[in-house]
């Protein structure tokens, strides 16, 4: 026998301006099963909540309906109130008479009638609500961090320092990402490697972190707290346990002219290589696409000369399986190459380079040992033009967004150039200057006021080569859009930051949403920037959107704290609004026929198969079973089940039909 309490909220003027709450309450009080019906100005306030508490106590309510805003706003509030008063929280529901009624209609009797209908529908539902209890799921307190750039490193260290185990997987032979390629970082002009290498070493030495480099995530299964991951550790062709990192193999390798990925194509490496001097781990890798042994079966000079006898040509990829409870995705970004720009030469001019390539030239450990030199003839450039917004903010090239970091690193590049070549002329052709971070505006003004960099406002139409010089055809919109032509020795394009290669495939493996640009999607752009819509998977760094180092680090720590919160208990609570396959007494056991259409329909792969057996182990039937940990309560299985054997707790067929019939 139902004893429902109905509470109509005015929500100030939000509801009361168009709906008559007094009339609604009065009408509801005459509905059979409703024993208490009141209206109040602000139900979510303390006095409002007290109304519910008192009513439950005094009238012995068996169910509560709060007619107010959307459940997305205050359902947790009212459910908690009920729970504290001893009423199962799932016996409390909200009728949305704000977003669904008062906010979308004009003030009239019909509007109030609609509100009454909405409340009555929910009342009928609540009469059939059953108490539900949170589901507990165990948690594996190990985190998987995918990507070993600054974001991945920061997240790993934070989680490891909180006392949990971390598995860090990095695709390249060494961790470090793009930050380790930089020369100096804005706005402090700190040496990038100097500030990063201590972190890298910390990761390598941390007792809680297991580092797999030259590895990729192969497969992911499971759900929050209980993921099962398969990691492919690609064959280095070197036994890491024996190798001492002496580097003799690199000296002896005859294949020396392979464009180095670390040098962004500005320098060369050998076929067996350690990407850079501070690599972590400091163990080489054989590039099978360029090694003479793998191509033609010859050479083997490295094997002959290795003092530790660590070369293993027959080494194979290894698949490592691990159980983890949370995942942090920190796969970073990439930049467009010069060949994406038809008007700047389709990539054929050697002295037109990207910002990342300029970083390698400016870096003391780079191919020119920190001297700025033209790739074509090795001379010092006397005039250099930096083109900002190359590819970014450019719908014609398919990239509408701003890459955020280029204004800052262009100013930095111009400053570095002027510091190294005092008499040189530096021009920056820009559209806007975006320098919003701390000390950023001051940094850009320093470039202009102290280092004499010439900023020209106007995008460059074309760059072509003539007599060994690069002719830059720009414009100065501040001077009446006068065309401006500069004869430069080098042109640096601040190319757009794009999602890293393989981002889409990884997102599909993790079942994480991503946008049209292959950036991974956060759960809410304002309030949930480090979570994804997939429970248990978090984001850090530029894989979500282009960002600078302070932001990447902050986001990484944020993701780490979410992971730590997840690991804080031994169990996880999940909402019980999930699907359930019915069971009944023998000989039927369940009305489920075992057709498994639900298994195919389920978008979350939450349906499993369960065997019902006799005591002797003889199989009676195989029925569907819902995995409590994965099911999201979408109801697709309920819709497709032919036998109506599966139902949704909290939104059962009976409840929904009752709602419809109440109208």
């Amino acid at each position, binding site marked *: 026998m139902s004893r429902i309490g109905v509470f109509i909220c005015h929500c100030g003027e939000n509801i009361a301006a168009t709906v008559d709450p007094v009339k609604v309450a009065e009408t509801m009080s005459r509905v059979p099963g409703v024993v208490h019906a009141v209206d109040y100005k602000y139900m979510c306030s303390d006095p409002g909540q007290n109304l519910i508490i008192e009513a439950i106590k005094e009238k012995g309510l068996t169910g509560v309906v709060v007619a107010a805003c959307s459940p997305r706003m205050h359902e947790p509030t009212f459910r908690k109130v009920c729970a504290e008063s001893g009423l199962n929280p799932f016996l409390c529901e909200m009728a949305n008479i704000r977003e669904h009624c008062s906010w979308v209609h004009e003030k009239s009797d019909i509007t109030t009638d609609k509100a009454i209908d909405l409340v009555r529908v929910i009342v009928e539902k609540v009469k059939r609500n059953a108490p539900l209890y949170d589901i507990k799921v165990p948690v594996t307190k190990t985190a998987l961090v995918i990507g070993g750039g600054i974001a991945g490193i920061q997240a790993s260290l934070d989680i490891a320092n909180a006392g949990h185990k971390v598995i860090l997987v990095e695709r390249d032979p060494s961790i470090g990402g793009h930050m380790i390629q930089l020369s100096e970082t804005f706005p402090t002009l700190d040496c990038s490697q100097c500030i990063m290498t201590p972190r890298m070493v910390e990761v390598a030495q941390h007792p809680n972190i297991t580092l797999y480099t030259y590895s990729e995530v192969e497969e992911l299964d499971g759900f929050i707290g209980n993921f099962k991951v398969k990691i492919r550790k690609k064959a280095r062709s070197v036994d890491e346990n024996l190798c001492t990192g002496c580097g003799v193999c690199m000296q002896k390798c005859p294949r020396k002219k392979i*464009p180095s*990925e670390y040098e*962004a*194509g500005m320098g060369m490496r050998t076929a067996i290589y350690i990407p850079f001097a501070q690599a972590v781990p400091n163990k080489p890798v054989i590039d099978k696409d360029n090694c003479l042994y793998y191509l033609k079966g010859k050479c083997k000079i490295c094997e002959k000369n290795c003092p530790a006898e660590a070369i293993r040509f027959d080494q194979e990829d290894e698949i490592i399986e691990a159980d983890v409870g949370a995942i942090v995705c920190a796969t970073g970004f*990439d*930049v*467009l*190459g*010069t*060949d*994406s720009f*038809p*008007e700047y*030469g*389709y*990539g*054929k001019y*050697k002295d037109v380079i*990207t910002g*990342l390539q300029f970083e390698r030239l400016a870096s003391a450990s780079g191919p020119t040992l920190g001297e700025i030199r033209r*790739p074509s003839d090795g001379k010092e450039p006397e005039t250099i033009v930096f083109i900002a917004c190359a590819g970014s903010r450019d719908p014609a090239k398919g990239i509408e967004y701003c890459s955020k970091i280029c204004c800052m690193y262009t100013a930095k590049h111009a400053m570095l150039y002027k510091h190294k070549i005092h008499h040189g002329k530096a021009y920056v052709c820009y559209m806007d200057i975006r320098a919003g971070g701390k000390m950023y505006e001051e940094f850009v003004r320093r470039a202009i006021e102290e280092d004499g960099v010439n900023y020209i406002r106007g995008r460059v139409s*074309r760059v*072509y*080569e*003539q*007599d060994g010089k690069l*002719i830059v055809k720009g414009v100065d919109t501040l001077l009446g859009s006068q065309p401006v032509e500069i004869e430069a020795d080098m042109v640096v394009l601040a190319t757009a930051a794009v999602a890293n290669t393989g981002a889409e495939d990884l997102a599909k493996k993790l079942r994480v949403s991503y946008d049209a640009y292959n950036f991974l999607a956060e759960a809410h752009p304002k309030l949930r920037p480090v979570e994804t819509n997939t429970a248990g998977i978090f984001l850090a760094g530029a894989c979500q959107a282009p960002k600078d180092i302070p932001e990447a680090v902050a986001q990484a720590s944020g993701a780490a704290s979410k992971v730590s919160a997840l690991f804080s208990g031994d169990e996880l609570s999940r909402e019980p609004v999930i699907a359930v396959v019915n069971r009944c007494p023998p000989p039927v056991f369940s009305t489920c026929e075992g057709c498994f259409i639900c298994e195919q329909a389920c978008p979350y792969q939450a349906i499993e198969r369960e065997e019902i057996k006799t005591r002797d182990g003889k199989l009676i039937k195989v029925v569907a079973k819902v995995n409590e940990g994965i099911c999201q309560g979408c109801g697709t299985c309920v819709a497709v089940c032919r036998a109506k054997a599966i139902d949704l707790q909290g939104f059962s067929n009976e409840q929904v039909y009752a709602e419809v019939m109440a109208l």
Partner: protein
Amino acid sequence: MKLGYYPGCSLRGTAREFDESLLAIAPGIGLELEEIPDWNCCGASAAHNLNRELSLALPARVLALAEKAGMEEVLVPCSMCFNRLAVTRHELLEDEELRKRVSDIIKMDYQGTARALNILETLGKLFDEGIEDKFVKPFDHEVACYYGCLIVRPPKIVQFDRYEDPQSMDELMKKIGAHPIDWAFKVECCGAGLSISRTDLVAKLSGKIIEDAVHRGAEAIIVACPMCHANLDMRQEKVEKLKGKKYSIPVLYLTQAIGLALGLEKKKLSLHRHMVPVVFPPREKPAIESKSKTKTGKVAGQVEE
């Protein structure tokens, strides 16, 4: 290959060399042309400078005539005509209301089945069918391939070749034994329709083109558009006056260069009609060594991230 043919006004007037050389080489390369009966002017730059509807009606009528004659593909050697026909077809197919209105004006129902082909893609297709042995007198010269602005733009509509550094003409020239140079003014406008009204501006723009070509060692400029030819050939004297130096660089239609390579006579290809005499003095070392880069144009060492 049999194609419809739309010569356009200039090919039957001041650019007759283009028409005559094209018809001269056609049998040799397997091309059969059928002229659109009683075709009218496409309106060129004059129509779309003064009236939008007229600028669509005139080319639409040409295409409608082609359709009526049962032609699906029409070779349009003149870049201006080609551009007008291609853009008109695109606009009318995109906007049904516009198509109806224009069909009403020309009193012919234009369906969009007839399509304009430019000279480069046509020759490209013909040359694909193994034609090298026909070039008995290789055109052994350094040439600057000048595409002009209209044959590759607007890139989204025309969708032909790389619009900043096209290679199709260079490829054709290579096949006839020429040496196309890599230069920076392949698609920079020569001054187009201002040839008569503002010859001073044409001299300025065409001057830049000729200067760059000569500076990089070209012995001839190869063109595929009558307006470009007029501005670079007929107006070369004016350019020389402006720049204060003598260039005397012959400007050939690509069909003429092909004709010479096929072994045809100069007169048959109307080379004698040019303002700048088509003679090739004995070659000295070119000013700049720059060969055209084909394929992806990537230089070793320049790797994208």
